[in-house]
């Protein structure tokens, strides 16, 4: 190779190495974000479940005039808290099971760091990071349900009006679902268009 082509080759390798570094930082950020959102979702679900259990068990115990709960407030709160903790733990476990492909991404990044990165590896990495990002964005659709549930309980409990609470919950759910799906579809379309345009420009 001539010195010009050697320089060009070094420049191409440097760009691919820089891309690997960007991918590594992005993966680390996505993992932190996913973990944080998993914890936040577990706490939110726990809080909603606690309020729901408080309301549900309260209604049941007053309807049947059970002395179990009214006679033993500590036991009542332990039961409510146990339900909330069970809901929070199962949400945490469920979200952890639906882990994004960080292990695969990390192994791809490490493989590229070991040897010289090729454009094909780069394309594979870009596709994988994009898929992980989309999965993260799609997770927001699930979160919309919990935002709706929180709105329902807050308005329902403090406003003391179940119908208004329900309406508010549905509106909040639909709004956040619409936003999350819009963001997901825009991102997906933008990437596919960019890839198609590039392929056609060759």
């Amino acid at each position: 190779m001539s010195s010009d082509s050697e320089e060009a080759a070094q420049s191409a390798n440097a760009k691919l190495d820089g891309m690997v570094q960007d991918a590594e930082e992005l993966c680390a950020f996505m993992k932190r974000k996913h973990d944080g959102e998993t914890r936040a979702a577990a706490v939110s679900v726990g809080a909603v479940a606690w309020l729901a259990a408080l309301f549900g068990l309260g209604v049941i115990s007053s309807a049947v005039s059970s002395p179990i709960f009214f006679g033993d407030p500590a036991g009542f709160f332990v039961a409510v808290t146990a339900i909330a903790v069970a809901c929070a733990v199962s949400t945490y476990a469920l979200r952890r099971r639906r882990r994004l492909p960080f292990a695969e991404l990390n192994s791809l990044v490490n493989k590229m760091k070991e040897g010289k990165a090729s454009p094909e590896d780069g394309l594979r990495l870009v596709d994988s990071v994009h898929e992980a990002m989309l999965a993260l964005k799609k997770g927001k659709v699930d979160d919309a349900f919990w935002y709706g549930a929180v709105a329902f309980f807050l308005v329902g409990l403090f406003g003391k009006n179940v119908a208004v609470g329900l309406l508010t919950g549905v509106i909040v759910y639909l709004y956040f679902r619409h936003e999350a799906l819009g963001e997901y579809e825009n991102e997906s379309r933008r990437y596919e268009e960019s890839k198609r345009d590039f392929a056609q420009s060759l």
Partner: protein
Amino acid sequence: MEKPDLYVLARFLDTLYKNGQPMKKTNIQMRMGLNYSRFSEYLDWLLAHGLVFKDDTGDVELYGLSPRGLDSYHRLVDWIRDTMHDMKI
């Protein structure tokens, strides 16, 4: 071939780029790891689009990266880097 696979194109361009010299068809095919008919399809596509040139002045046919192919290789690397850089959560 209407829509070539970008991964295969990237591998093709990279093979010729890294070698630096025009190569024999068999050597390219071996490095590409494609069957002959698939390889021929891609080679024909690259020749038709002016990304690869054929040198048949010697005893054997050699294939190398044309200036347009070289430019495409660099644009591919730039596209990968820019796409990764623009990815935002």
